[in-house]
């Protein structure tokens, strides 16, 4: 069953809202790497949330959930559904790591002050589905809610379930989101694994080089079963599997947007599987994080809407990069690879 994309909302290093993404795609400029102290990462600004949710209601809500709420509200606004009844709207959220800062804040509470001083607020907000709960509480979505954490495969996996909910008639529409946040501990881990110097530029199609820069953000889609009206086109299907167990066949005629994000190890997997095929990659616009596949999907949807495939930013003349081109009848697919041969393929159509 196809899923119609009725609206998109997002916040990341390039700004907030679909026009911010379109502007970044049109300019072809990678977002500037902004820092907080020693950190380098694409940061999301959540100040726009004040337009949708009273500040009082946000007092105990952490940055991760604020990004989530902002993405969800922007998607509903984009779909002109802010005032609609949401009793049959499901919430599906994919995240590689969940609310990291709050997870560590909770550990701070007992490591610093003893177990009897553990913070109940930090604990309850560190539970992975807290962000989905805030969405359902603030936006009054009483249908099913699902949070999936599958590292690199979080987005295709969660999308598969959103599709089944719609197909089985459990919901009339799904607020589907992908969210991850950056934090100091993650930065430390990245430095230990990849060495310091995540200053950019992120060059995802230079597969053999480590150029990843941590990012964060939230992207949401309003999906439903409409067959006629879909401003951003349709998601035809999701395929997941392991290409080392059973070789996967990539759709031949499709333009591929790959989730390569400047990690040398992952770059090797793309190189092996793509075998010289030209592709597009947009991680320089939002940075490297597991849920960034959701942003790849947003780029694909905007490209369908605009009828053109945008140039891959920071491609630097890479022979792997597809040129800017008008889209004819060809379909777009988003490909994400994970360790051990895992893959997720999301296929779209107009």
């Amino acid at each position, binding site marked *: 069953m196809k899923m119609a994309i009725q609206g998109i909302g997002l916040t990341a290093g390039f700004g907030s809202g679909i026009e911010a993404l379109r502007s970044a795609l049109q300019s072809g400029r990678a977002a500037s790497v902004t820092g907080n102290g020693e950190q380098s990462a694409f940061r999301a600004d959540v100040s726009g949330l004040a337009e949708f949710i009273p500040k009082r209601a946000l007092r105990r809500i952490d940055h991760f959930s604020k990004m989530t709420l902002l993405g969800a509200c922007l998607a509903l606004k984009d779909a002109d559904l802010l005032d609609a009844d949401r009793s049959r709207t499901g*919430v599906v959220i994919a995240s590689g*790591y*969940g609310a990291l800062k709050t*997870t560590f804040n*909770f*550990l*701070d509470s*007992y*490591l610093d002050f*003893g*177990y*009897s001083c*553990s913070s*109940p607020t930090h*604990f*309850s*907000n*560190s539970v*992975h*589905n*807290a962000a*989905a*709960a805030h969405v*359902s*509480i603030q936006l*009054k*979505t*009483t*249908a*099913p*809610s*699902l*949070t*999936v*954490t*599958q*590292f690199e*495969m979080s987005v295709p*996996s*969660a999308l*598969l*379930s959103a599709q*089944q*909910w719609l*197909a*089985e*008639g*459990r919901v009339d529409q799904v607020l589907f989101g992908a969210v991850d946040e950056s934090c100091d*501990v993650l930065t430390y881990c990245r430095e*230990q*694994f990849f060495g310091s110097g995540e200053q950019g530029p992120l060059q995802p199609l230079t597969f053999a080089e480590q150029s990843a820069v941590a990012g964060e953000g939230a992207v949401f889609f309003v999906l439903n079963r409409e067959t006629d009206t879909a401003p951003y086109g349709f998601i035809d299907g999701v395929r*997941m*599997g*392991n290409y080392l*167990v*059973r070789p996967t066949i990539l759709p031949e005629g499709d333009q591929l947007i790959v989730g390569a994000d400047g990690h040398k190890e992952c770059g090797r997997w793309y190189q092996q599987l793509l075998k010289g095929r030209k592709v597009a990659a947009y991680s320089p616009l939002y940075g490297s994080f597991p849920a960034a596949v959701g942003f790849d999907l947003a780029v694909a949807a905007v490209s369908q809407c605009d009828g053109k495939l945008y140039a891959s930013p920071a491609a630097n003349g890479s022979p792997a990069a597809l040129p800017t081109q008008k889209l004819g009848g060809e379909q777009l697919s988003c490909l994400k690879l*994970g*360790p*051990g041969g*895992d893959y997720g393929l999301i296929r779209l159509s107009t």
Partner: protein
Amino acid sequence: MAGLTPIAITGLGVLSGAGMNLPESMETLFRNERHPHPPFRFSTDHPVSYPVLELREEFKLPLDAGETVYARTSQLALVAALEALTDAGWNVESLRDKRVGVCVGTTVGCALNCDEFYRAYKDEEQPDMKIIERFLRSNPAAVIARQLKLDGPTQTVVNACSSGTDAIGIGASWLRAGVCDIVIAGGADELARVTYAGFSSLMITDPDPCKPFDAERKGLNLGEGAGLLVLESAKVREEKKTRGTLLGYGSASDAHHLTAPHPDGTGLKQALAVAFVAADVTPEQITFINAHGTGTPDNDRVESRVMNDVLPGVPFVSTKGYTGHTLGAAGGIEAAFTVACLQRQEIPASIGFSTADPELLTTPVQENCSVFGDVALSESLAFGGNNAVLIFGRGES
């Protein structure tokens, strides 16, 4: 939503504080025994030592995992998955030409709450990255899929305490959609200092063995374990006898509070309503209920009210007195118990219950008792206001 195609359950695997496999756990349940004790696997400076239900023995992974070390949650999941596959008559090699999905619920298994690493990081002691490497290779669904060399969708559901229940409902939907031929679905969670501290901070942990639905209940006991089911498409199952059938799944959100259920149980009622429609059965057909029954004042009050409203007079049991609250694993373990109890037409006493709460209109079964019928129900309530319900049909074997 109309009635959905029933899904065959061909194998069950359980690892819990009640036993190291399903038969052992069932024996413990029907002997009405439980073994709560202070945690052995970690220590805290908390002034109260809350009892927990840890596994009674150490276990060894039955597969050669080489040098790979997985986090405990994933090890639990793997052991239960192998028991379930064996129960279903599959050996790992025979799965090679099948599309096999894995859908596992957890909480601890996906949280980067490695407090020893973080303490060293805070103290600028250059913590060992092996802890993080282990976390990154220990996503429970991915571990099962990679270790068994499966090709199919994988999903780790992190819906707090309804994760295992949701994972089974989602896995069934993959089969109905033809996404795969077989699904290994359920939940797994290890006991951890972080959740121990967290639930203590919320003041919903009983300093004594827990007492679900009792007038004197003070909260939950944490537990650990895994419960996995093998679900099969009709094409793959052919003539194989079933352990049971998954008839329906429903879920809904309270949209009310981060940690407390809606006082009227609106989300649970909605989840029940959806599950009944999906299963195409009526409340009158339900033989017994495996209740969420954590032993917390709020949960049991709301759940009791809903059961009284929607399923009046239906016998129910909370098995958390035997296993503790295993969080993301609970839905998987309790689904396996429900299917197994339906098969033997008998449910165990709801251990810990002795005094009826005048505020509650229902009481759980106080002795092992026979049940007569073909349909049973398991329900889960969770942080975040998630509510999930599974309805099972009796098996043939």
